[in-house]
């Protein structure tokens, strides 16, 4: 499979937080969701791909090129959407777009105007007068107007109403239909990822937990629930985390079939959602 992004042994150290040894790939023509709780390192990874922060170790290759050595070539093919748009607030949308368009050879003015129209934005509107959702729409229009091969978005759906979130996700899904474009977006809203992502990469406390096809995860991961002290978490095959309450125990497993085989009907085995996985790994009492 052709990869749009290849990240190897990525490391970034901050005071009190270290992103360490992150390795994963994003295949071309697919949507990958980067999930994890707040402070897990999602934004750090996105910023490292964009070279907005310096890496301490590791390698980032985008379109087969090193993202530092070939910075302009790589960025020319990326449509980047920030978690909070960084445009001069007192300018009209058309002025901002005019300033930015000069940097992209493939900027398509007509496409940009169509996108604004589709998002119900006027080029003469002043940026600071837009709502958060409208600002995100404008950022997305900028990112899509130069026919980028990779759409990279940091928490694009945070703070958006469900209607626009749905529209945005539908748009992303439509975007990759030509099998040439790739989308990587970070989010802590797992339902968004379940709706559109083909692959999911989960980071927690600066470390990679897994990076795999979403369907594989949803088919193999599960939660074993048992009341009382019938079993211990270590007995569950593929156990990745557990949560114990006064009367019950829930164990997250990456091999629900093996767990079913082991315990049969004596326990309840549910398929795990991405939210379950995030909850058990980040909020569970302990890892097994």
């Amino acid at each position, binding site marked *: 499979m052709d990869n749009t992004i290849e990240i190897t042994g990525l490391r970034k150290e901050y005071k009190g937080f270290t992103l360490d040894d992150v390795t994963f790939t994003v295949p071309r023509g697919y949507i990958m969701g980067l999930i994890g709780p707040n402070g897990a390192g999602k934004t750090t990874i996105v910023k490292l791909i964009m070279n907005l922060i310096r890496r301490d170790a590791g390698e980032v290759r985008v379109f087969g090129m090193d993202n530092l050595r070939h910075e302009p070539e790589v960025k020319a093919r990326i449509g980047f959407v920030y978690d909070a748009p*960084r445009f001069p607030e007192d300018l009209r949308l058309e002025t901002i777009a005019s300033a930015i368009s*000069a940097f992209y050879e493939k900027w398509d003015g007509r496409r940009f105007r169509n996108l604004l129209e589709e998002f119900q934005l006027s080029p003469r509107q002043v940026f600071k007068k837009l709502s958060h959702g409208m600002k995100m729409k404008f950022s997305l229009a900028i990112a899509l107007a130069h026919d980028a091969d990779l759409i990279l978005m940091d928490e694009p759906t945070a703070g958006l109403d469900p209607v626009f979130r749905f529209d945005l996700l539908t748009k992303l899904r439509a975007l990759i239909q030509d099998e040439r474009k790739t989308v990587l977006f970070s989010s802590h809203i797992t339902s968004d990822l379940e709706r559109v992502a083909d692959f999911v990469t989960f980071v927690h406390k600066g470390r990679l937990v897994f990076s795999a096809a979403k369907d594989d995860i949803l088919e193999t991961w599960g939660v074993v629930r048992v009341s009382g002290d019938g079993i211990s978490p270590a007995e569950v095959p593929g156990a990745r985390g557990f949560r114990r309450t006064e009367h019950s125990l829930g164990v997250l497993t990456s091999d629900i079939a093996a767990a079913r085989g082991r315990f049969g009907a004596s326990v309840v085995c549910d398929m795990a959602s991405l939210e379950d996985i995030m909850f058990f790994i980040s909020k569970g009492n302990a890892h097994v």
Partner: protein
Amino acid sequence: MFKILRLEFLFNRWQLLTVLAIFTAYFAYMAYQIDSPRIFVVTMSIMIGLSMPFIILGREDKFKTAALMCSLPVRRTTIVLGKYAATWGAIGLGLGYALLFKAVFPFSKFAIGEILTARNFLVSLFLISLIVAVILPFTIRFGLTGIIILLVSGQLLGILALILTQALGGASNPMRFFFRAVKSGLQTLLTREAAPGFQLTLVAAIVAVNAASLFISRALYARRDL
């Protein structure tokens, strides 16, 4: 670099014009009050050298557009070069406006011809270069916080220098020697005969100061996390 220059122009044009409009009152006051062409050149240079970079870099800091700039398909070294070009462009605009105003202002104490000399031009550029050379690396690396730290540090150093000058006493103490050297340097700059050698030295100093500042800014910006 020209794309960065264009972007800075589009992002800051109205603010630059607004500041120049506000400066009109200041220039009018200077032209009306100051009867020495040299003092006019020095005060105008300091004022423009301090204010114009702040407009561009201050707005960038306010709206956090450095992250936008660095997400565009250009290298950081090019961005820094573009910022220097934009700053000097804004300074050129300020100087041009100040001179034009001086030329048409009817109540000037002296004629515009008295300040339109190669020496005055070079002295003005040299003074502005000194200011810009210090301000830009700090602001490019640390934003407005950096410049506030720089200004506060300057104030504290000034207070410390005054206290030391008083405490050490005597005409030959090192602080007084330092101040005399600065004063004499400025006097030489402003009164020395404008021989070709002197002008050439000034040009070399302007180039060296800007090149050193640009070199430092590039190194600092490359290390900046956004």
